[in-house]
Structures are given as C-alpha cells and as structure tokens.
C-alpha cells in the first residue's frame, strides 16, 4: 500500500537525516548554554581571533542606537516583526554557534521581509545598516520568498561597532531569490553573522557576499533544502588589507535528492597580517541521490605578510550522485600575465590592477544582474585604485 510505503520511507529518511554525525557542523540549538564561550580550540572557532571580537560573544543585550537602519527600495515588503518561535522565524535557522544564538536571544523582534507568491520584483529591496562606534548590536532578519516569486534582497553593512547578525531565508517552492550581503565596514568594526537558507522544491537561491571592510568579519552562510530540485549558488568576493581578518564559512547540506550547489569565492590579500579564511563544507547525505555540487576558492596574495587559509571539506554518504568536486588555490601574481600586459606598454602598477580587476570580474559577471554587476565593478575599481601599488620589474 502506497501510504504505508511512503510513511515508512519518510520515517526512514527522517531517522537517517537526524542521525548523521558529521564533524562538519556542530549541534544546532537555540539554548545559549549549548554554545559556551569558545576557547579557540573548537573546530568552528580555531581560525577566529577571539581576542579581537570586542565582546561580540558576551551574553549582554546590545546598546540602544547601535544601528541606524535605512530601507533600500520598496519598503512595503517589510511586513512587520517576528518574536522568537513565531512562524516563519525558526523555520530555517537554528543557531550553530554562540554569536548566532546571541543574535536570536537579544533580537526579540526579527525584521520580517516577505515577497508574496508569484510576485516578480524588478528592483532590489533591502536594508542598509550603519553601526555606531563603540556600540554593540544584535539583529535577526527573516526573508521569506513566496512560491514562484522572484526578488533580490540587499543587506548593506557599514559604519563601526560590534554586530551579531542572523539572516534567515526561506525560499518557497519554485521561487528565485538572490541575497546580497555587503560588508564595507570601517576598519575597527567587528561582525559575526550567520545566514541560513532553506531552499524549496525546484527553487533557486543565490547568496552573494562581498567583504571589503572591517577589523574582523566572520560570516557563516549555510544552505539546506526543503525538497528535491533546489539550486543554490553561493558567490563571494573579498579584499583584505593590513590587519583585517575576513572569514567566510560555507555549509551546504545536501539533504534532498537532485539538488544542486555551486560555491565560488575569490579573494585578494594585501599588507601586514591581512588574513582570510575560507571554509567550504559540503555534506551529501544518503538521501541526496542525483545531486551535483562544486566549490571553489581562489586567493591572490599581493604582498608578503598575508595569510590565506582555504579549507574545502566534502563528506559523501552516497555515491549515487551526478558530481561532486572542489578546487582551492592560493597564489601570487602570475609573472607571465604581468609580462604580457607590460609588453603592450601597460605600466607595472596598471598591469597589476588589470589582472586583479579581471580576477574579480570573472566572478562578478556570473551574477547576471547588470545594475549590481556595475556597482560591484565600481566598488572593486575603487578598492584597487586605493590599494594596489606597483613595483618595478
């Protein structure tokens, strides 16, 4: 009998899903007691400079007036606030680190953004957050994309202070949602964030992270699926200058069959103690037959004294898949590329800028949103103009 068979399958897969013990991700919980203050030896914290987090992991409410919030685009899609546990808050995100648990705890009113079913938004919507110096803030945002809707949500971080932020994303069946998160903080800002998305059946989710500024920026961008056929693309670009620590942690949990994921992060580092960390975790569960995943991280080290860590992890529990792969490379400027450009009369400095421009442009043109591509290109050019100096060859 079909019902019985389906029920047995459901039970079996539920058991299987619940029982995966993976080193890739810790136990998720809303209870802060499950997320004690880290010592730095924990797998998920070992790359992070805990001493520089300036109280981001302390259990205390944030300061009033710590954040100035502006709405980007049509404000009518910001529909209200959600208390802890009030649906859909909690439908996607269950904290798996202390900062995320704190952001849940100390943000009693989550901002609720909702794109109705079948709505197609031509213009991006979003929020611009400007942090105040010396103040701590917590924020929880829930973005709900209705069935077959199409939208772009932009979260723009700037200013100063210490920020713990959760972004909880629910992509409805057949929806197409792009979330862009810009981290262009002042040099002294600290930001620890978790972005968790659940991708519906046949839905498309894109997450684009751009990190140019801040003292310590650590984001955990996670994806899991609510049904088969979901497609997630996670793109990132970052440019770390002297003393900056930018840590991008990705986790794609292939918990449904025939789902896809593609992760591409590119970064440049320059100056003393510029540090970047990229952790790309992919788990392919036993149920996840027919999935396809690829992740890639490329770093360009421009000067001495920088450090780029790049750690791809792939855990595979079924061989019945379309494909799974990863690539990671950290390199200096390619002398042959520079020689080629300089042999055409282009100065050393300009050649370096051109190679870097190309390095990022290669990623930017994957975005497919002309307006955003232009803005990012301009931001990259600005960053390059300010920061990339040449040397005689």
């Amino acid at each position, binding site marked *: 009998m079909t019902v019985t068979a389906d029920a047995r399958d459901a039970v079996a897969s539920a058991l299987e899903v619940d029982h995966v013990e993976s080193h890739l991700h810790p136990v998720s919980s809303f209870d802060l007691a499950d997320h004690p203050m880290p010592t730095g030896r924990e797998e998920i914290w070992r790359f992070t400079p805990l001493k520089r987090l300036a109280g981001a992991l302390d259990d205390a409410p944030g300061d009033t007036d710590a954040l100035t919030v502006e709405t980007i685009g049509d404000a009518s899609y910001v529909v209200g606030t959600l208390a802890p546990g009030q649906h859909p808050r909690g439908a996607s995100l269950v904290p798996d680190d202390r900062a995320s648990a704190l952001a849940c705890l100390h943000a009693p009113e989550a901002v609720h953004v909702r794109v109705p079913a079948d709505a197609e938004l031509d213009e991006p919507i979003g929020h611009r957050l400007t942090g105040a110096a010396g103040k701590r803030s917590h924020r929880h945002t829930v973005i709900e994309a209705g069935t077959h809707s199409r939208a772009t949500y932009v979260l723009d971080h700037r200013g100063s202070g210490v920020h713990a932020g959760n972004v909880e994303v629910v992509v409805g069946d057949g929806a197409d949602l792009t979330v862009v998160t810009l981290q262009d903080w002042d040099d002294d800002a600290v930001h620890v964030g978790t972005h968790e998305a659940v991708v519906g059946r046949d839905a498309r989710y894109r997450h684009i992270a751009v990190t140019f500024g801040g003292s310590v920026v650590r984001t955990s961008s996670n994806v899991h699926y609510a049904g088969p056929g979901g497609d997630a693309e996670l793109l990132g670009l970052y440019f770390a200058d002297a003393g900056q620590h930018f840590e991008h942690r990705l986790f794609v949990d292939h918990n449904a069959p025939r789902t896809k994921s593609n992760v591409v992060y590119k970064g440049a580092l320059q100056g003393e103690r510029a540090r970047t960390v990229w952790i790309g975790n992919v788990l392919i569960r036993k149920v996840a037959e027919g999935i396809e995943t690829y992740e890639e991280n490329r770093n360009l080290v421009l000067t001495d004294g920088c450090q780029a860590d790049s750690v791809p992890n792939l855990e595979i529990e079924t061989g019945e898949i379309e494909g799974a792969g990863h690539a990671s490379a950290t390199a200096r400027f*390619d*002398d*042959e*590329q520079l*020689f*080629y*450009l*300089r*042999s*055409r*009369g*282009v*100065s*050393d400095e*300009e*050649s370096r800028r*051109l*190679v870097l*421009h*190309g*390095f*990022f*442009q*290669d*990623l930017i*043109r994957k975005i497919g949103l002309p307006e955003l591509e232009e803005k990012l290109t301009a931001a990259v050019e600005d960053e390059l103009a300010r920061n990339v100096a040449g040397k*005689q*060859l």
Partner: protein
Amino acid sequence: MSTLQITDLQVSVDTEDGPKEILKGVTLTIDSGETHAIMGPNGSGKSTLAYSIAGHPKYTITGGSVTLDGEDVLAMSVDERARAGLFLAMQYPVEVPGVSVANFLRTAKTAIDGEAPKLRTWVKDVNGALEKLNLDSSFSARSVNEGFSGGEKKRHEIAQLELLDPKVAILDETDSGLDIDALKVVSEGVNRFREREGKGVLLITHYTRILRYIQPDRVHVFVDGKVAESGGPELADKLEAEGYESYLSVAP
C-alpha cells in the same frame, strides 16, 4: 625611420645547474622598411632572442647591447620598451581571465600613446582590425586569450600589432600551429603593417612556409645561440630544400 641594432648580445638563463648560456653573441641590424627572417632548429635560441629584446625577467643579459634609434633598450623596463616602439607577438599568448579584449586593447593603446584614444574612431578601428583578421565583433567582449583557439590567439596578436602600430615588430613563431587559411590571414595582417612607412619586422620561424606569404629582405640561420649564416631570400629556398642538417653537423 628607425633602426633596431643588436650587437654581440649574450644571454643566459638560471637552471638547477647554475646559469646556462643561450645566446652567444648575436649581431643584427634591422633598418626601417626591412623584414628579417630568423630561422633555426628547436633549441637554437630564437625565442630567447625575442624575449630578451622584450625584457622577460627570466633571461639575464650577460653582454652586448640592444638599441632602438640609439636608445639603450636593455636599460628600459618591459613597458618602457613597448612604449619606445617595440612589439612582441608571442608564440604562446597568455590568458588574462576577466579582462575583455576591448578593455585590454584600450588600456594598451592609452599606455602606448600616452592618452586615451578618441572613442568614436577607436571603436571603428578595433572592429576594423578584428574584421580584417576574421574575428567577429563579439570577440572584443571575450576575456583576453581565454578559451581562444590557437588560430584566434595568433590573429589577436596581429590585430594588436595593427592597432598599437609599433616601430619594430618581433614575431615569435606566429606561424606555428596555424592551418593554411589562418596563415594567409595572419600574413596579410603582417604585410599591411609592413606597407606602413618605416616599419621593421623580425620574423622568427621554424618553417619556410610563412616566407611564401611574407617576403623577407634578409634571412639569418640561427644555430646554437649565434647567427650561422646570413643571406637574401634565396637562403630560405636552400633551407627548404636541405633543412638544418648541414648546420647541425658542424655545430659542437
């Protein structure tokens, strides 16, 4: 009018066993309006000559001189050499991902001329140059050399030659790997450049085939880092008939 003067040029590269001498005293004078072909077997140092003149950091100049109109080329940086009027069409053009051909050409032209080209005429010039080399206009949106076929890479090099308009062009095995149709297109491009007033060409090749389309004024046979014999176009005919055997047997 310009003259590229190479005098007793000696060049070495660093190897695991220490420096290895590749060029052992090369002397050549290329006057404006002249095309010189350098022919030689693999490993004779032809490409080393090209890359040394262009200033590739891999090569160390241990003796001799190179001047362009009396200016010391060897004292110049790589980009200064290009701005002084030298152009190297490479055997293996390098991929620059994410940088469009249009952006690359405009950046190079601006660097060579010291000012940005006038937008309206420039777009026309670029499209014209690409078209003459059988490259359609969508080509300018592609990343430099990325995913190009061998023939596209070479045609792109010659399009640059025509647009950047140097005084002296060094063509390093531009003919290698080309089918006969592509070879004709590339040769026509080189010939259009030669027709311009006062241009010098140093054509480096392994095969005589390209010399049917580009008539050299002088032919030099290169063996073991030196010019073994120089002559007129008839020397190429001799090489076609006899190969490099006679030179190799006398070489140490």
